[in-house]
């Protein structure tokens, strides 16, 4: 499933509105401790987290995640969105807790 398909099916908010959303999502990883994410995430996964500082960008790009999904209504700043856009990292907001976010992804076959 592509990021675009996911947005269409869930209505989740796309923060980086100008970025291409045609990338495939191969699976998902859920976590907020960056070293766990670095050590265990896989390329092309969607990363579910409540971390909303700019270090998320470096981890997501180095791990080659297809997108980051901010869960639980964590407060995404305009600056973070601008930096994500500059670095070509697609960021979404599910607006629901991480567990519920993961359940939705699983329900969609991700």
């Amino acid at each position, binding site marked *: 499933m592509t990021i675009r398909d996911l947005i269409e099916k869930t209505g989740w908010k796309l923060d980086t509105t100008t970025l291409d959303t045609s990338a495939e999502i191969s699976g998902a990883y859920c976590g907020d401790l960056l070293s*766990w994410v670095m050590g265990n995430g896989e390329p092309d996964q969607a990363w579910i987290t409540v971390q909303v500082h*700019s270090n998320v960008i470096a981890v997501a790009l180095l791990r080659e995640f297809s997108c980051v999904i901010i869960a639980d209504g964590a407060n995404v700043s305009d600056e973070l969105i601008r930096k994500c856009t500059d670095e070509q990292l697609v960021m979404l907001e599910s607006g629901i807790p991480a567990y519920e976010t993961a359940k939705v992804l699983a329900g969609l076959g991700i």
Partner: protein
Amino acid sequence: MAVILHKDYKVERDDYAAAGKVSSDIKQTLNSIGYDPKVMRRIAVASYESEINMLIHAYGGDITMDIMDDGQVKLVFKDPGPGIPDLEKALTPGFSTASEKARAMGFGAGMGLPNIQRVTDDFDIQSSQDGTTLTLSFRPAK
């Protein structure tokens, strides 16, 4: 074995805004020469964790990367202290001495050095109160 590409970087203490910049450049450099993506991903994990360690735990430091003509990549992370008091503990998964500030940002999981060790072909760490030197090398897949 000759060096075909050499790069030097600096990391400043507590400069969280710049965290990951060196690792991103290392990855981009390897990508630009068409380096094996699987090994490149291992290098990205190790360089990121090492860079973060310098920023969180040390007084900043210097990083060098050498790419050899046989495809081997050597990374050296050298900081001026304060050193790791108990290396055995530092290498234990889950053990962390990170500050509250670092933990609030998701650092300090205690998985940094264990992650580095796991993804590296050759791992050497020397530490005293005058500083820590971490030497890592990676070999291309055969």
